[in-house]
């Protein structure tokens, strides 16, 4: 750990269109910043690995030039370097990875394992911290793949959830395709979209084709999930079954991120926007909405957030929670403001302005 980042600090990793930044604070009141890393180039996703609290991973193009996608790795506070290889499809495939959207730590008992979700939609696994990658055939060449259609955000695999109870249980989300689940470590996958609307298709409830925007585990610890979709907000009960739409009480059925409380069951945060045709906060008021009862009701929080007159937006990876008590919640806008709450989303403080457009926010504790 670099001396400037104290052990026990919360580190908020922010990927932007022009580099990556690490905000860190021992008390979550006064923040310092390291960066930019990969200055001038996009950093699509960046995180401090919560398993060791020292290793930073980032998904970014190689340099700021057109050399293809790369995974970067390094110690927090130091410039990460490209790993030996980026995820790539197997030889003979006509597919080519154009962008890594998301990096997800593997299970706690496999500290060298990380997953990557990429565009065109596919899941890759590395068991050596990103130096070599395994193409997850059963999903990446799923029988339905030939009919997958890209949405406006591209055909991207952006959500990867690894069940902390069972590392063979994963749930993933692909834009305009939907959610898939495996219970056997990725050997077989089932579509998990029952009850989820696809307003843009003739059949509003197809087996797949729904536009999942983000997935998160419910802290209930029984396999329950939250989902923010292009068409609504949803909760799925323990270990499978249909999703229940929980949009009622929110100002719209459209938004990108969803972040769940890591300890308090049935608790999550969303940032609804006006809609697909106007992706800014309703009435020019930035707001984070919170549920503590798996979406049966929602409460709006605006204290410390800009508006009215704030026509800003939050992108798919733009919200995160830390592991502290009380919980910290972090939201970055596509216009470069970073907000933090250190009271479980009740009130907010802007910790940085004038950043490049924020593409991703993650949070973890430095060790």
């Amino acid at each position, binding site marked *: 750990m670099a001396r400037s980042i104290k052990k026990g600090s919360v580190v908020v990793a922010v990927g932007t269109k022009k580099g990556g930044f690490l905000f860190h604070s021992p008390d979550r009141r006064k923040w310092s910043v390291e960066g930019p890393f990969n200055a001038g180039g996009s950093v699509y996703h960046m995180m401090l690995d919560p398993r060791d609290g020292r290793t930073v991973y980032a998904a970014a193009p*190689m*340099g700021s*030039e*057109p*050399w*293809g996608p790369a995974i970067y790795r390094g110690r927090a506070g130091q410039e990460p*370097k*490209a790993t*030996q*290889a*980026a995820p*790539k*499809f*197997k*030889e003979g*495939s*006509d*597919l*080519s*990875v154009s962008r890594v959207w998301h990096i997800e730590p593997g299970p706690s008992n496999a500290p060298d394992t990380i997953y990557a979700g990429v565009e065109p939609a596919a899941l890759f696994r590395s068991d050596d911290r990103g130096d070599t990658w395994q193409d997850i055939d059963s999903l990446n060449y799923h029988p339905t793949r030939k009919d997958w259609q890209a949405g406006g955000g591209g055909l991207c695999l952006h959500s990867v959830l690894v069940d902390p109870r069972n590392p063979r249980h994963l749930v993933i989300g692909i834009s305009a395709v939907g959610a898939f689940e495996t219970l056997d470590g990725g050997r077989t996958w089932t579509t998990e979209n029952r009850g989820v609307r696809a307003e843009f298709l003739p059949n509003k409830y197809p087996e797949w084709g729904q536009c999942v925007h983000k997935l998160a585990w419910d802290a209930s610890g029984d396999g329950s999930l939250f989902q923010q979709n292009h068409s609504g907000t949803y909760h799925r009960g323990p270990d499978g079954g249909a999703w229940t739409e929980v949009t009622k009480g929110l100002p719209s059925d459209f938004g990108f991120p969803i972040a769940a409380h890591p300890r308090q069951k049935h608790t999550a945060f969303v940032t609804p926007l006006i809609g697909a045709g106007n992706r800014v906060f309703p009435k020019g008021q930035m707001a984070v909405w919170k549920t503590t009862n798996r979406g049966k009701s929602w409460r709006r929080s605006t204290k410390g957030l800009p508006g009215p007159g704030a026509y800003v937006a939050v992108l798919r990876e733009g919200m995160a929670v830390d592991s502290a008590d009380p919980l910290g919640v972090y939201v970055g806008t596509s216009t470069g403001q970073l907000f933090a709450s250190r009271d479980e989303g009740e009130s907010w403080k802007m910790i940085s302005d004038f950043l490049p457009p924020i593409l991703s926010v993650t949070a973890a504790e430095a060790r």
Partner: protein
Amino acid sequence: MASDVSPKEIARAGVLVRIPPALRSYTDGQDEVILEASNVAAMLRALDVNFPGIRDRVVDEAGRRRPYVNVFVNEELIGASLPDAKLNPGDVVHILPSVAGG
């Protein structure tokens, strides 16, 4: 940057490949590499043997040249024929990104 290697020496040793700054992290900072190869595909494979991962920066997993990455042989742009483009001892290969903007 002018090469320290004379054309005669290149001709004896093989093909000279100029490495762009963005890819020198693969070559331990070397800005040029001399190797033996009879075409561009073989040159990229040979480069990758010496500097694992560098080939993936020029072509994708299907062997297609990445958009906005250009390969010149003796200052002549190699387009669609990239993998099969012939190389001869003494040739100088430049790997360069396209100009940004426009």
